[in-house]
């Protein structure tokens, strides 16, 4: 049984369809990413998973339970870190962790959790005095304090400096080692590529791609990039005519052809046929960034 199941989920706010037929499943122990531009419906989707919004249509299950009808039981399985929520201004880190721990019958070890998130030096600081990154880490701690089987992390590393960001990624990877299922909303490609087993790209309320990070990159129209010094005898028009070629540009003294594996094969044949060579030839994979830009508008 998948840990999280979303099938044909739709949710509109008035006239605007925020989520329009989204489906995916997340297996137990998997780290599943939801990637997409702002306003694509990512947050609405995970809010439906967390039972904070009632879907207009479709089916959502967490551990086999309906997050709206079985809200209490789902909150026991699922830890949540939300965007745009705060805590009481004068509540200290320690008090917040004690309070949220008291909601669960078997909470995680607070001291270990605080240490793991680098909060142990700030236990007596009030919420309003915390930096953005410290607040973010506190919310991650609160998501994990019930020792959940699954966790929703929405814009996990927003506001974190590069070091804290990497520490947080390590933490997410250690969650995987513990068998915790993670549903991760992000628009940081590096984060998705490094952490996620699979990714759903959501654009305008619909899933436009669902695959492993490598699969998504490979499927994109611009999966491969061929580049070489611009002083070659090859014409831009004949490069653009290569099968699968998406784009031909010249920048910084190099000709850059983007396309697919077929483009690369045809390019090599072209060199042989024309009996020419090029200087500084490089064939690279596109990044998830490129694929993402390809899959969203």
């Amino acid at each position: 049984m998948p840990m999280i199941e979303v099938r044909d989920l739709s949710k509109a706010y008035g006239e605007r369809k925020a989520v329009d037929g989204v489906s995916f499943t997340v297996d137990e122990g998997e780290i599943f990413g939801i990637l997409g531009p702002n306003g694509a419906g990512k947050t609405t989707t995970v809010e439906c998973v967390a039972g904070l919004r009632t879907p207009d249509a479709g089916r959502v299950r967490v551990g086999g339970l309906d997050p709206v009808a079985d809200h209490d039981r789902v909150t026991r399985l699922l830890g949540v870190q939300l965007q745009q929520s705060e805590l009481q201004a004068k509540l200290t880190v320690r008090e917040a962790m004690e309070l949220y721990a008291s909601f669960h019958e078997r909470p995680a070890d607070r001291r270990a959790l605080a240490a793991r998130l680098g909060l142990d030096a700030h236990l007596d600081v009030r919420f309003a005095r915390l930096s953005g990154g410290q607040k973010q880490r506190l919310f991650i701690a609160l998501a994990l304090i019930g020792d959940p089987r699954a966790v929703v992390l929405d814009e996990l590393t927003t506001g974190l400096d590069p070091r804290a960001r990497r520490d947080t990624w390590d933490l997410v990877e250690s969650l995987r080692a513990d068998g915790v299922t993670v549903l991760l909303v992000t628009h940081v490609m590096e984060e998705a590529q490094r952490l996620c087993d699979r990714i759903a790209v959501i654009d305008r309320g619909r899933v436009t791609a669902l695959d492993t990070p490598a699969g998504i990159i490979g499927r994109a129209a611009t999966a491969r990039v061929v580049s070489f010094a611009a002083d070659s005898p090859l014409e831009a028009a004949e490069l653009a005519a290569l099968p699968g070629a998406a784009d031909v540009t010249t920048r910084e003294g190099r000709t850059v052809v983007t396309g697919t594996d077929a483009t690369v094969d045809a390019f090599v044949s072209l060199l042989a046929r024309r009996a020419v060579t090029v200087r500084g030839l490089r064939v690279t994979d596109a990044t998830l960034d490129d694929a993402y830009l390809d899959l969203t508008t």
Partner: protein
Amino acid sequence: MASTTAPASATRAVLRAEARLFAREPAALFWVMASPTVLLVILGLVPSLREASDDLGGRRVIDVYVPVAVLFALIMAGLQAMPPVLAGYRERGILRRMSATPVRPAALLTAQLVLHAAAALVSSLLVVGVGRVAFGVALPGNLPGYLGALLLAVAVGLALGAAVCALSRTQRIATAVGTAVFFPTMFTAGVWVPVQVMPDTLRRIVEFSPYGAASRALDEAARGGWPGPLALGVMGVWAVALTAVAIRRFRWE
């Protein structure tokens, strides 16, 4: 189904945390807990207000100002202190964050209502106590009647604050509406002119307002009788109506 409810200790933990936070708000504490007594003491220091007045049927102004200061405590708690807290909790996503836990955000609202009710009651007892000790104001002649009327008045006062919060989208609006409602309630509670010395027609109208009715009920019990059915009935209707508005119109986010 014990397994599907939050640990009973969770509700207590919410109350304990909110009580701590309440104690960290010195301004709110002053206005709710101390200012009614301060008001009474200032009035009590004016010699003429400690002299028997024919307008008041031989009572002194300070005598009728004890229930006025009690109602002032209720207004401060229900209308000035509580609505901005509740609206702020909603506006800043604190209620939303809590709705993703096994504890419902209603626990947070309940804790706030309990704390403000407790603060208003303690403040009221302080007023009555200081009135007795410092200015010789007789304790309420009918103590059970007085306490009953006081509890009902606290319920009305908090329901009014909760309704203000439910009808206000943001914390700023809640504060503004609270302040706009504040002055009429101060007037009807008799802060400027005690209800008992208002002209008859005005007094009858005022006694149909939440605080006007509370003023009459407390006065009746202070003089040794039982609060009359009219005053209690008016308060009861207000309490039910305002609670219904608060529950029906409250938005969690």
